[in-house]
Structures are given as C-alpha cells and as structure tokens.
C-alpha cells in the first residue's frame, strides 16, 4: 500500500518515526517533496483565506499527493505531553482537510493524545498498525524501530545538522566563518521549509554566520528555561520556542536572534509579546521578528536579514576593539 506523507507541518519533527514504523509494516511511504511555488498557490486556493501559511502549505502538499497514493497519513496531534496541547489547528486538521472540494484518497488519522496517558497512546499505535498488519508483535517491533530512528534523528540534530541536511541529504556549501552566531527561533515548519523561509538558513550560512536552532539544544535546558514563565504555557511547541529564546537571552550564547513567525498564527502572536518583553533591556540580545505569509517578497526579506547581520557584525567588532 502506498501511504502519502505531506512534507509539511510536523514532518520536520517526527518523520523518521512514522517512516520507519509504516515502512516496517510493509507500507511504501511516499513523500510529497519540497515545497514549491506551485504547492503554495494550490494550497492558498484550496484553503480558507484566514488560515496561517503553514496550514495552507500543508493543503498544497496534500493536493500534490492525492493522485499518487492509496491513502494519506494525517495524524491528529492533540497533545504530546501531559496537561498541554498542540496548536488548535492540529486538533482540527483531519476534519479541516475533509472539507476540501477535491476528491481525496482515504485518510489515516490516528489521534495522538498523550495527555490521556501512554496506555491510550499504545492502543492508538496498535490500532494504526492494524491497518497494515494483524500481528501485534510485528506492529510493536516496527514501532520500536521507529522510535530508535527518531532518537538517531534527534542526536544528529543536536550534533548541529539541520532537518533538511539529514532528511533530504542536502549538504550546504562550506563558507569562511566570520565567527557570528545567530539563533533562529520559530516553528520547525517555518524555519526549515526552504521555500516559505526563503532558504534562510542557507543564506545566513553563506553570509558566514553560524546558525543555531532549538533542535540543536538539549531538551532539558529548553524545558528548564520555559519553566521560568509565571504561568505555564499550554502549547508544547510554543513552549519550546520560548525556552530556546530564554536560554539564548540568559547565556548570550548567540549574537542575535531571528524569530520567524507566520501571519495569523494564534500562539505566535502571544509568544512574540513574551519574547519582546524578555529582551527589552539595553543589555539584551538583539532580536528581529520576521513575519511570513504567502505574499512575502524575497527581496524585502533578504534586505532585512542582511541589514540585521551587518548590524550584529558591527556590534561584535565594536565589542572586540
């Protein structure tokens, strides 16, 4: 059976797990490929105009997959830890895409709700696996292989490679380093999607800057830093963004922060306030917020990034003298 996997949203977080799991059960996992201009325009037409860019991109990937596969894998991520949620749009994602006018192949939509506990979760995994195999043993050994693959992936990321380098086996050109280190904050689907982020990581590296993202940091550091908020955030992925930026702000381990967010993103609109409040003092790290949507022009964005990097470089020179 050919199972389609849209290369968007949580692809950058969990793909190795699901690929190995579904692959181990005999399914052929078909990726929709990197985002292109066509993906974005298809998604923008099919999706509700008020949705955020990442969801529109997801729609585009679905439409690219629909004629190539027997079924599409769209899990419903409700929560990935206790007493938290993911973004509401992940909660309603399978229902939203069912309302697309085009004929879609049947969807596989397991509900991942870890707030309900591991027992419930493994029941979901078993149910999901039953679509492909009747052997409980085979399902769980495939799942185990998936978990190991995910762990390997996380180790690779912490060693400093980006999801694009690992998942798509792309190598970035080596450039002379200027010693500048920039923290890139934001959701993985915003910063790693080469089309919607306009290849930001590559461009920064070509300017001689080293890039650090949340995925390269230790999870425990991020958790500890996020716990400094007076009220716990109830969105897991946003907590990661906040924890990462707090860590940088705390330790000054980077020279500046670029925060990429998509227009109309609900959680990001609030996170931005928290981050700006944290980085308000004179001695704080410089931070630039980049808001992207389907109308973002490459030239405007690049000019701003270049100006920001120039400013950081000058600041660094001044400190050295």
């Amino acid at each position, binding site marked *: 059976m050919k199972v389609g996997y849209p290369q968007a949203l949580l692809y950058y977080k969990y793909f190795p797990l699901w690929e190995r799991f579904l692959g181990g059960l005999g399914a052929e996992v078909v990726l929709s490929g990197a985002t292109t201009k066509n993906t974005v325009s298809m998604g923008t037409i099919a999706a*509700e105009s008020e949705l955020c860019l990442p969801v529109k991109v997801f729609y585009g990937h679905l439409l690219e997959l629909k004629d190539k596969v027997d079924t599409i894998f769209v899990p419903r991520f409700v929560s990935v830890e206790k007493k938290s949620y993911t973004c*509401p749009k992940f909660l*309603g994602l*399978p*229902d939203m895409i069912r*309302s697309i006018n085009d004929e879609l192949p049947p969807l596989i939509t397991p509900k991942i709700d870890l707030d309900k506990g591991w027992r419930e979760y493994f029941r979901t995994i078993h149910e999901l696996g039953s679509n492909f195999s009747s052997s409980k043993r085979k399902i769980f050994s495939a799942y185990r292989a998936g978990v190991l693959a995910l762990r390997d992936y996380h180790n690779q990321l912490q060693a400093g490679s980006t999801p694009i380098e690992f998942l798509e086996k792309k190598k970035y050109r080596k450039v002379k380093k200027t010693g500048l280190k920039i923290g890139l904050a934001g959701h993985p689907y915003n910063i790693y999607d080469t089309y919607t982020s306009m290849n930001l990581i590559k461009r920064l590296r070509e300017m001689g800057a080293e890039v650090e993202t949340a995925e390269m940091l230790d999870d425990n550091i991020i958790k500890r830093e996020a716990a400094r*908020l007076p009220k716990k955030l109830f969105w897991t992925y946003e907590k990661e963004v906040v924890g990462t930026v707090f860590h940088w702000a705390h330790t000054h381990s980077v020279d500046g922060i670029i925060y990429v967010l998509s227009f*109309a993103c609900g959680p990001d609109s*609030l996170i931005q*306030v928290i981050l700006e409040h944290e980085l308000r003092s004179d001695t704080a790290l410089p931070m630039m917020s980049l808001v992207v949507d389907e109308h973002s022009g490459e030239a405007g964005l690049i000019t701003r990034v270049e100006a920001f990097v120039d400013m950081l470089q000058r600041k660094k020179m001044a400190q050295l003298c």
Partner: protein
Amino acid sequence: MLAAFPRMGHIDILLGDLLDRLGIDYLLPPVNSEKTLVLGAKYAPEFSCLPLKLNIGNFIEALELGADTLIMAGGRGPCRFGYYAEIERRILKDAGYDFNMITIEPPSLGFFKFVGPIKKVSGKSIRKIWRALKESFPKARAFDQLEKLVLKTRCYEIKTGATTKAYKKALDVLSKISGPKEVDGYLEEALALVEGVEKNLDRSVLKVGIIGEFFILLDPFANLDIEEWLGIRNVYLERSVYVTDWIGPTANNPVGGVSDTHLAKLAENYLSHFVGGEGLASVGHTIHYANQGFDGIIHLFPFTCMPETIAKTILPSVGRDLDIPIIHFTIDEQTGKAGVATRLEAFLDLLWSRKRQNEKKRLVKSRQLV
C-alpha cells in the same frame, strides 16, 4: 485597593454583584467604544484577536481612572484566551503602568488556583466565597433569560423600537434583585414587560441562528449591535451562547438550550474533536439550527481566532449537506458597520427569496396531492 475587570456585554452584572458581596471596591471601565479599541489596538500585538485588544483598552481606561488591581480570567487552552491575563500584564507593564494583576483560573486547573486569588483580594473564607458565587449566579442567569426572550420577540413588534424600550425598563427591574430568592418574582415581572409589547404574531419572519466566538456574540460593541439591527428587520433570532453559559460551572443546562455533549454528537461527522473555544459548538449549533428548520446562520468571530477559523473551514460543507445558507463575518478593528450592513441586507434578501420559493414549492406539491 480599587479593582477593575474587562467589559464584555453584561458580564459587569455578574462580576459587580459578586464583588459587592465579597466587599471588594471596584470601578467599571467605560463601556466598550471606538476609543477603547483604538487604545487596545495600539498596544496589542498585530494579529492578536479583537477581545485582547478590547481588554487592553478597558484596562488602560480603568487604570487611568485610578484602578490599581486588575481582575482577569485565566484558562487552560488551547484557545489563546487562557493566556491573555499573562500577556496583558506584560503589555501594560511595558507601557509603564503600575498595578497588581489577579488571574482567576478555571476550577478545572485546580480548585485553589480558582479560589486562591479571590481569597487573597477579598480576605473572605472559602465558604463565604462559595456562597457569594452561588448567590450572584441566578441573577446573571435572569439577565440572560430576558435577553433570550428579547431576541426571539423583537421581530414581531408593531412599533419599531418598542421592544428595546421595554427591554431597558426590564433591565432596571432585574437590577433590583438582591438575592437568589427574589429572582423568580422580578424575572417574571421583567419578562412580562417585554411580552407586553404590542405584537403582530401573524407576520412572516425569518428564523436565523447566530453562532460564533463568545466575546463577539456577547458584546454589542464588538458585534456592531447586529442583533437589534436584525430584530427590527423582522428576523427571529436564537443565539448559541449567553454570559452564564460561558462562565457557568456546567455546560449541561445552558440558557442557549443545547448541552455540550449533544453539540459534540451533532457535529461528529464534520468535526470529531474539540478544538478549543467555541469551534466545536459553532459546528454543532449550525446543525442544531438547521434541524430546527431555521432559514439561515450568521457566524461571527474575531480575525485570526483559531477555533472559529477551523469552524469556518468546515461550515461550508455543513451548509451544503443540510441546505442552509451561512454567512461569515470576521471582525477586527478595521470592520465597518456599513460594510457589514450591506452584506447582511444581501443575505436577508437571499433568505427571503429562498423562503418564498420553498413556500411556492410546498403549495404546488399540496395541490398536486389534491
């Protein structure tokens, strides 16, 4: 200490009564207005939703009038509203105001997170707080019941504006309530005032359901007073949510009439999981109203509202399957009344012509049967 809380429709009746019982001094910020919104939009993040902008506007107006303690509701997500108290605290501190923020979390996050802050400000025992809550609630519910009746009967009034006039008088009657025992008597009197308005019950009216995000539905400034506008144009209205439904301890006996479990069941085929806020309820209510034979649905929500955007994505297929027209209004600080009115007029025209056509079809059918 002088406390203040944000405005939202007639929530001031419930909270004001509660604070009086607890012996907390408070001031009411001015009613939501253009000025409130301008102030709020200046400080709030660009794509946060309208309720946050109005909240911040209310708080700034209250702080300038001398309030020093701000009371705000918390929440457990995934709707953004649950984190607003924190965000508002930061924004107002950054803007240079000095105040104390009291966040009252819902009891589902832990009973002490709910009762603790109230205890701290009022200095009353938990027992007394519980009693105050129990005594203020029925009064607020009476206001909701009155509002519900007004929405249903305004379309039949003979003299335009008579219901609104009677409603104002009835509100004065209800505000005399000082304890739960008096609720029934005064409520009867108030309902009788509205029912006493001269009516033409044979008039043909459109039946429309109003659904969407609670803040926009409950606050007449935020929804551009759409209910009165529709009422005087002969539209019978039912609304999905009332103040006590939203704030109430259980969702099983709402003023709006449909319990949460029933809504989830109705919406199952279209949206099978809750998505925070009123997203699921909006889909459920649309199906409920369609089953009741309503002529159309008006969906109101703030721009960038996550749960309602999900509902908006799903509702067109509901409308198609159940053959009911739905109009969506996304509201933010740029929304103008004239634009909304024009779209609504066109929508009502459409509903009238559909209604006439359906009646004609029915007539033809009954003749064929004869």
